[in-house]
């Protein structure tokens, strides 16, 4: 492959690489850095690329390896990250001032429930083991096949299946216990709370009902609800969506809260 073709192909994968790395690290700057490192490493190794996999798979394998060296990707959060972050936000008037400023001035400062669902997935998925997290993202959000994920993660297909299955099971259980959108007994109502703050004119139930996962909640098919959640996440680019700046601000806040919390826990 010529360097020119490589550059063209890399650009086609750049957005997905960047969002994958954001979802792993929860840090926009780290995601951008690792994308650049991936480009440099892949450029160096290009003569050795013999096309045993697609270039996209190969690039994700390099990015994934680099992510393993990133502390923010490796560190695991707690399932109740959004609870802890809420408590911290309520004690920090600056958080809401900054959020409101973004909401009022940025073209990417909308608050949308579906965007918050995707944001919530990014936060909560950092509580499952790293291998499960990676396998789940690659399969459910980036549409890689098990055989391709095995290449990216340098694991056997059997292990990838194990990570996928158990990762899904863990996430389904967490959302079943937490997410009030799919379970009335769920303890987390942050979508509606934040929607009330950022979109005070909206009726939350009407807005939420526009989301297929919310409409399907009554059927209580947990696997299907998780598939719908994943479809929703898949459809959102966390760097370019209408709500990206607001959600990246929230993500930075949650990451800081988690880093402080985990430091105290040591």
């Amino acid at each position, binding site marked *: 492959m010529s360097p020119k073709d490589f550059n063209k192909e890399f650009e086609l994968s750049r957005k997905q690489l960047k969002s994958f790395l954001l979802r792993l690290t929860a840090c926009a700057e780290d995601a951008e850095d690792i994308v650049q490192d991936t480009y440099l490493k892949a450029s160096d190794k290009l003569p050795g690329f013999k096309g045993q996999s697609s270039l996209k798979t190969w690039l994700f394998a390099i990015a994934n390896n680099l992510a393993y060296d990133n502390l923010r990707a490796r560190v695991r959060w707690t399932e109740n990250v959004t609870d802890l972050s809420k408590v911290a936000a309520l004690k920090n008037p600056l958080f809401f001032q900054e959020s409101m400023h973004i909401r009022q001035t940025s073209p990417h400062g909308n608050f949308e429930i579906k965007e918050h669902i995707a944001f919530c997935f990014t936060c909560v998925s950092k509580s499952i083991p790293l291998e499960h997290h990676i396998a789940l993202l690659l399969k459910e959000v980036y549409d890689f096949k098990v055989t391709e994920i095995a290449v990216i993660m340098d694991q*056997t297909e059997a292990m990838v*299946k194990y990570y996928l299955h158990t990762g899904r099971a863990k996430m389904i259980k967490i959302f079943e216990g937490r997410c009030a959108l799919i379970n009335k007994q769920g303890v987390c109502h942050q979508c509606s709370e934040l929607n009330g703050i950022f979109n005070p004119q909206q009726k939350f139930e009407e807005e939420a009902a526009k989301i297929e996962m919310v409409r399907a909640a009554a059927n209580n098919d947990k696997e299907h609800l998780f598939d719908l959640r994943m479809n929703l996440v898949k459809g959102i680019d966390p760097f370019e969506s209408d709500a990206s700046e607001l959600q990246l601000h929230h993500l930075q806040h949650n990451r800081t809260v988690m880093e402080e919390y985990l430091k105290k826990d040591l």
Partner: protein
Amino acid sequence: MQQNNAVTIKTTFSRETSVSTTINSDPEIIWKLLTTAYDYPRWNSTIISLEGDISLGEKIKLKSTLDPKRTFKLKVKELEPNKKLIWGDGQGNRIYTLVPLGKSSVQFSMSEKIGGLMFPLYSKYIPPFDKAFEQFASDLKKESESIYHTKN
């Protein structure tokens, strides 16, 4: 071989219960399930909790539905990846073995022998293992096969 009923052989100084079943899955998947302590309660209805690291020489703490009030402190005594795992204490050993039967088919067996000179004095306080063993093997089969059939 499909799942058999558990078999218990009693003598004056010991009791041994065993069960085996054919699992249509990859041995690596079965092994991962058997050696990931914290994940047991998710798929195994006979285990309440299992703490620790299932590695050779490590100590683990097991709470089972057989005797929910007790925590068994056990040691991982033998570990041969994808083939054999033994944990136990001074009274007995639990042995798990995996034998390949062909491509993606494995014979899983588990057995536990408890006993010793004092065994006749306390044997009546130890509940039978048969049903729990059958359930363990059935849960492992179900979970392993479900994982194996994950879509590509």
